[in-house]
């Protein structure tokens, strides 16, 4: 097993894609720290992982705060003796209430960049000296195919995800001589609470989508845009993360891999 005896931290691991990543890494032998703000959901994931036979721990974390990601890294090392894998997955689509606003406010821009970009920067800064000292580490960041090219509508989110890809490359360069790989996964269309809120946003702000449920909007988007003709799953992202975080990908760094059924080529 790729992660026998290893420890991973997954930010935003309480639900959605982060939960999928956490369960996948655990299945492959890893102990997993769930770093999230949502304690109730996180504790369910912790219990699920423990039932599967590896260790898990909830660390209440707000990735927008450097002190909090410092604490997250410290807790992981204290709890499990080492930290091998950091998955920066926490992400948002805007400030609270964004689903009702046709045009994003400055608060939406700020919240999106705070979590989706500075969240990665903070957690990476918290862990890099430890990984460099050890000469070993794997960092996988979750961006989005929205970061692969600008589109009207969700410019806040797309711009933050483009920044996430760029930031990953910067740290990949910096940490490459020290045995630390930094890569990115760009998910396509995955039915999670986040996509449900994107569906709500479309249904309340886009005339062509009004009257449709978020799930209907999601399914229409899948049908229109995915060459393989099906939605992607949290398991798909978990498996791609598991590959990039494993030693099988030892010579891969600074890359962004689309897991999107072929929506965007790279």
């Amino acid at each position: 097993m790729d992660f026998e005896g290893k420890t991973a931290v997954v930010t935003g691991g309480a639900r959605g894609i982060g939960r999928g990543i956490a369960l996948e890494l655990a299945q492959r032998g890893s102990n997993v720290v769930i770093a999230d703000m949502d304690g109730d959901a996180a504790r369910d994931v912790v219990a699920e992982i423990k039932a599967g036979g590896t260790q898990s721990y909830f660390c209440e974390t707000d990735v927008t705060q450097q002190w909090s990601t410092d604490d997250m890294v410290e807790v992981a090392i204290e709890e499990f003796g080492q930290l091998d894998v950091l998955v920066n997955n926490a992400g948002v689509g805007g400030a609270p209430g964004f689903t009702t606003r046709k045009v994003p406010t400055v608060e939406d821009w700020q919240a999106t960049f705070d979590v989706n970009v500075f969240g990665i920067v903070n957690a990476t800064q918290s862990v890099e000296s430890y990984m460099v000292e050890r000469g070993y580490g794997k960092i996988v960041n979750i961006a989005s195919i929205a970061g692969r090219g600008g589109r009207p509508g969700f410019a806040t989110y797309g711009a933050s995800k483009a920044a996430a890809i760029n930031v990953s490359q910067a740290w990949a360069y910096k940490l490459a001589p020290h045995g630390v790989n930094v890569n990115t996964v760009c998910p396509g269309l995955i039915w999670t609470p986040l996509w449900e809120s994107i569906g709500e946003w479309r249904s309340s702000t886009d005339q062509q989508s009004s009257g449709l449920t978020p799930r209907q909007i999601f399914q229409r988007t899948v049908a229109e845009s995915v060459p393989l003709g099906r939605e992607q799953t949290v398991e798909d992202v978990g498996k791609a993360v598991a590959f990039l975080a494993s030693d099988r990908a030892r010579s891969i760094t600074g890359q962004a891999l689309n897991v999107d059924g072929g929506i965007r080529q790279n």
Partner: protein
Amino acid sequence: MVTGGATGIGRAIALKLADKGASVMIADINEEAAEKTAAEVRDISGNSATFVTDVTNVAACEGLAQATIENLGSADFLVNNAGVAGSAGWQSRSHSTEEDWKQTYQVNVIGMSNVTSVFKPQMTKRRSGRIVNLASIAGREGRPSLAHYSASKAAVISLTQSTALELARFNITVNAICPGLLWTPMWEQVGDRYAHDNPAFKGMNPREVFDSMIAERIPMQKEQTPEDIADTVAFFVSDDAKNITGQALNVDGGFFMR
């Protein structure tokens, strides 16, 4: 089914897939080396066959597809790995000739399309299949020398993308791998060529050229290995990658990030 599976990267791919339990058909122009690799595969997974194939020859490719079915059953995975960097003597020239252009396109691009075409029916019929094409980081951006090789590898990436879109509705994924710098017989010759036509490498032997490229251009400060590439092929053909298609992934120690 692995083209160019006799030596170098192709051999490592054949052995890795065998290690995961696959039977492997090895298609190569080099019969002796192909037989040797097939014997190694048999020691691992028990099942292997070879078929002498020049991928530029359509009739030979058709024979290969038939032989694969007869010997091992229809192919689940196709790995288009056979490649060349020029026509005979390319490594000691300081410019690309028309023959270099023709030969690289014949093998790297048209050969890839030939092989893909003959295996398509086996995969579309079962509505499943995985195709992995060997491109190169040379196909990601222009280079001061070997323009014909870089252009052929850019074409491989483009061919990968088109084939991915064409075959997506049959549940067939098509991805490319762009290896960075690997010390194989091919790179030994590349080193010769660079010492010839790039002033920065004047007077160096091929290994010195290779090492100085690693030092200057690879953030991880390490060469890549055939096993690195084989591990990535194994990922793309596995169930884990069933929703990944149309992608080219650089396995290059960070040489070129995208």
